[in-house]
């Protein structure tokens, strides 16, 4: 379905955000992409959805194909027409427009009026709260509601692949659980999902497969269960074994020192 090969990305002349990254997403899976701040997770999604240019970035090597077609040179609006839709970091709902208008904007990229109608029904069922708030300005919704709106809006064009950038950011645990269930449900309805997260606990519960990005490279990849069991992921992202905050921090520092070499020797193909 989505295939990223040898992808390198730069911002401006000097910032190298990704170095030969390979990622494969099948139609039947939720792929989680984990990684710390600045690892390049958002950059990966921007490269796929074609919005790098808006951030002053560009693809310097590699290619991205979706269902066999190159999409790395397409205008973002045309990537949407191919069926790949992203929910950007920080939700970015249209704050001054109503909830209803936000959903309408999402439907502008739909391939036909009939898919738009069926998507609307799907969004209504997944997010009943959005129907209750239809006439309200999106900027006045709570963070969780905004996240639901951002996901609902993206579903309005009936994507084949949904890219989510840190949907759990800034949400209370209960809301994180709710979003996780919704992501699972979206996937069961037949939409493939790439889930970028710092919240590894949540991501590994939702995902079938997972990859870990470390400073611009894929450091680990495998099934979600394998990664959840891996020591590195336990230590760095799940907070396993750590008895106290201090211990967690010192372990993280220690792991950081070893990480690159150790991890890559085990996983790099």
């Amino acid at each position, binding site marked *: 379905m989505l295939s990223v090969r040898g992808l390198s990305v730069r911002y401006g002349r000097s910032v190298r955000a990704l170095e030969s990254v390979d990622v494969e997403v099948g139609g039947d899976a939720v792929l989680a992409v984990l990684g710390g701040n600045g690892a390049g997770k958002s950059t990966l999604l921007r490269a796929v959805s074609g919005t790098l240019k808006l951030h002053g970035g560009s693809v310097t090597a590699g290619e991205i194909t979706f269902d066999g077609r190159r999409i790395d040179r397409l205008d973002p609006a045309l990537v949407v027409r191919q069926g790949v839709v992203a929910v950007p970091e920080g939700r970015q709902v*249209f704050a001054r427009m109503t909830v209803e208008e936000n959903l309408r904007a999402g439907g502008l990229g739909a391939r036909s009026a009939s898919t738009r109608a069926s998507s609307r029904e799907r969004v209504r069922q997944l997010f009943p709260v959005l129907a209750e708030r239809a006439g309200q300005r999106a900027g006045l919704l709570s963070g969780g509601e905004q996240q639901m709106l951002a996901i609902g809006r993206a579903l309005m064009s009936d994507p084949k692949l949904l890219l989510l950038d840190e949907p759990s950011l800034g949400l209370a645990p209960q809301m994180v659980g709710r979003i996780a269930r919704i992501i699972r449900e979206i996937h069961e309805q037949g939409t493939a999902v790439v889930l970028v997260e710092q919240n590894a606990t949540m991501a590994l519960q939702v995902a079938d497969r997972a990859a870990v990005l470390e400073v611009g490279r894929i450091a680990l990849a495998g099934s979600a269960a394998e990664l959840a069991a891996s020591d590195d992921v336990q230590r760095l992202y799940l907070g396993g074994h750590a008895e106290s905050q201090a211990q967690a921090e010192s372990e993280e520092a220690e792991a950081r020192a070893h990480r690159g070499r150790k991890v890559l020797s085990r996983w790099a193909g």
Partner: protein
Amino acid sequence: METFVQLVVNGLGKGAVYALLALGFVVIFKATEVVNFAHGSLVLVGGYLVYALKDSMGWIGAAVVGIVSAALAGLVLERLLAGARNADHNGLALLTIGVDVIITEEIVRRIGADIPFIGDPYDSQPIQIAGLTIFRTQSIALVVGAVLITAFFLAFRFSSWGVAMRAQAENREAAALMGIRSSRVTATAWLVAGALAGVAVLFMATQDFSGAGLGRGTHAIALIAFPAAILGGLDSTAGAVVGGLVVGLTEALSAQYISFEFSKSAVFLVMLLVLVIRPSGLFGTKELSRV
């Protein structure tokens, strides 16, 4: 009292014309974040075609050609700016100044010593009602302005074009991720702005409006759309309309009660006053978002 009523009607008529110009200006700014200093030359392009064609093809046909040409001129300018990929918004604004000078000079040169007026069907035919004398040009401008502005707001609020415009104005990246093609939104913004300028000039280059014929005089009047847009709030469509009306009224009232010479400065004084009190203009953006 009678003078006052006359002034208000005439002022609102002028205000409607300024509102059309300011609205186009704001639409371009919202879609592209570029301040279009070439708005006055779009006005002249439309006016020039009416002037050149009205004798051969009749006024109505010429007016239609003028409006369409002003719209297309907007589109050409848009393509030109799109070609200057590496320029930032300030660079692009400077570019529009250059374009403005070139187009204005060329049209002024072509018109030569003539001072054409192009409002044939209504110019210099005042209406007398109940002892009041009202300029026909301003009254028709008020009606046409009201119709076009209403149509604009309906489209802006309810049509897919309006949703796409507002989405892009608010968040370019999110709009692109919705499958909204930014180049199309931008192109339609320039088309609409050009067409509105093409309508506005039909009333501006008249005896009634100011006595300034097509040429530098009209161009100077078009510049009044800037304070109108700015005092309304550069990114507010409603602000453009209110700003236009405020400017039209200020001009008409100060010309009568203070002096004609002072009326142009009065417009800018009002703008400065508004900006001192509200730096983002009367209706400029204030953040609603919680995030």
